[in-house]
């Protein structure tokens, strides 16, 4: 940095005002332990809730259910009380957070509330056998909390609970591991969920409401759509509909990613689209004589890879065409 400054100053490319600004900034730059503090707090919350849970589990006979429920409920209520008392007023746009600790207390409150409800349900069957309700109510609460207090983490939690209410796991690791995608119902649920999320995102975008949440919705919708359509193509007998569905979904995502200049979403659309197109190609090759199939497949891989590289490069440049540097 110092070298660069010196050279540019000598060449006269940076005027004195800019140089002094840079020198001042470099001198006053601070060493940030922000993410270290955040990690400490995250780990702390994890360990405390795990230890607390284990402690209760091991001593459940001596403590008594009612006492536990009351304690958890009070703690959760306390967290929410603190958050409501210290919160900034509701805003249609991205709201600032009153502080790092605030976000964690909100998160802790939500987690404790889920535990509270879950405990009530398990011990007292408060929702009876309506298991759906036991998931739906916390999901709603989480979503309301996320919107009111503008917390992206709580939103993601609420959405995953909402999806699980529909019988689906949508968190990254679980998406492929725990779902039985050969079940027709799951595929349709996934596709429907993708549509719902897209609709919500579109509504929010149109009304310019909490735009910082829109990306989360689109992100989940994209992967849900991609995987559900692919599963539909590979597994179901009705696979013939899923091919154009995948095509439409990925094309829409592609257009959206170009509009929003999100390279990540572009990659996602190309990724799932490539799989679908590859499947079609292999299906076609399976009815061809072997010699043609093998050489054509090689040619396809090489050709499509080369084309993709060039396309990615071109798109990247077009996204950053107006960057000065």
């Amino acid at each position, binding site marked *: 940095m110092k070298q660069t400054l010196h050279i540019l100053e000598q060449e006269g490319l940076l005027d004195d005002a800019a140089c002094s600004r840079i020198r001042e900034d470099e001198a006053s730059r601070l060493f940030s*332990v922000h993410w270290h503090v955040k990690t400490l707090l995250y780990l702390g919350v994890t360990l405390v809730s*795990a*230890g607390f*849970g284990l402690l209760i589990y091991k001593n459940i006979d001596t403590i008594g259910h009612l006492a536990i429920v009351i304690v958890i409920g009070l703690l959760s209520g306390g967290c929410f009380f603190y958050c409501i008392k210290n919160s900034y007023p509701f805003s249609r746009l991205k709201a600032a957070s009153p502080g790092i600790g605030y976000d964690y207390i909100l998160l802790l409150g939500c987690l404790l509330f*889920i535990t509270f409800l879950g405990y009530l349900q*398990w011990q007292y069957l408060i929702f009876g056998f309506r298991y759906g309700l036991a*998931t739906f109510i916390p999901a709603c609460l989480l979503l309301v909390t996320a919107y009111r207090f503008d917390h992206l*983490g709580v939103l993601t939690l609420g959405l995953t609970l909402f999806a699980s209410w529909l019988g689906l796991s949508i*968190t990254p690791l679980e998406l492929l591991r725990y779902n039985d995608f050969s079940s027709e119902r799951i595929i349709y649920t996934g596709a429907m969920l993708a549509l719902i999320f897209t609709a919500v995102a579109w509504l929010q975008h149109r009304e310019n409401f909490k735009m910082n949440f829109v990306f989360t919705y689109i992100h989940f919708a994209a992967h849900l759509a991609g995987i559900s359509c692919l599963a539909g193509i590979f597994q179901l007998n009705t696979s013939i509909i899923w091919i154009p569905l995948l095509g439409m979904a990925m094309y829409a995502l592609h257009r959206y990613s170009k509009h929003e200049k999100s390279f990540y979403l572009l990659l996602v659309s190309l990724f799932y689209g490539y799989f679908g197109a590859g499947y079609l190609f292999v299906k076609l090759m399976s009815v061809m004589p072997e010699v043609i199939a093998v050489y054509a497949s090689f040619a396809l891989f*090489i050709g499509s890879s080369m084309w993709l590289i060039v396309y990615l490069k071109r798109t990247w440049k077009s996204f950053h065409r107006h960057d000065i540097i």
Partner: protein
Amino acid sequence: MTLYNRVKLANLLVLEDVKAWYRRGLVPADQVAAIVNSRQPAYKRSHVLYRIGVFLLTTIILYSSSGILVLILEPLIDDEYKLFLLAGSCIVFGILYHFIRHKDHFKSGVDDALLYNGLFLFITAFQLMFNHLDEDFLLFLVISSLPFILLAAVLFIDRLLSVAAFAGFICLVFLLALKAGDAGKMLLPFLMMAASVAVYFVATSIRKIENSYFWSGCLDHVILCSLAVFYLSGNYYVVREASVVLMNAEIPAGGDIPFAIFFYAFTIIVPLVYIYLGLRKKLYGSLNLGLLFFAASILTIRHYHHMMPFETALLLGGMFLLSAGWWVMHYLRTPKYGITYEEQEDLGETLGLSAEALVIAQSFGPGQVKPQGSTEFGGGEFGGGGAGSKY
């Protein structure tokens, strides 16, 4: 000594500094434009996502092409597959040279893929031709590959290969120590410590040389790795378990490895030193390693001395972390010693989706969804942050 164009590289580094200043609003746009104009031609650095995508695609192209080539040339190759591999690796390096010198690629994913695959093919061919499956197999592998990896790391200013070269060197020390018999095995921790210290000092001295500026990223990575290996070679758990495995020594109950006290002290003190140095010299690498190894040392001690039941340890540990975090925030309300807890650069939301949010959902979200007809309530298990117990 690099294959890349030094002028373009130097210009890239200047432009990156200017970009950082511009992002912070320190330089007006017209001066930025003038600087950009004056600093052409310059390499352009590719985004990591793009690089990964292109890397994968290039690898696909590489192996598909060689697939076709092998199919066509099969009768010719027959038994001489080793020579074919060698020739193949040379062709790959030839293509790499072309892309770097004539097509201006710089860490674009294409040159990365060609480099790694070419090196892999070359080393494989070399080993197939000259290595034997005897007791010295690993030793020969490391000795014969290390020079090439090091050469490639320097020629192509590659961080991964630098770390790989360091790893190779450490393996070399390890294998040679083992070959020295029981004396070597006894001294192993100290030999490894010495090796990593030696690398640390060599790397820091090279870094001070003006001409090594382009390789500073590589050297920084190697320095970090040497710090890590230094701690790990003296960590009590590692030393104890390794001596059990390597020397077939059974530790009698109540007994201990030789110099146990030294290793205990080492395990506890070194992370604290790293943390202190990290804060003092404002180096993230040292600080992060220190914190990580501090946790490791707690786990190490706990592994051999259970002082309290698990859930109490979790609770106390969690409360300690929370109070530590709170104390740091409180202490640094006004920045002290040039340290602050506020965010300095916007590193968090590079993809638009806060990675943080995904981590929260992953660790705290609902678990496996059970099939219909289960006795659990609808959503599955709700872990209180991974408690794993059902309420």
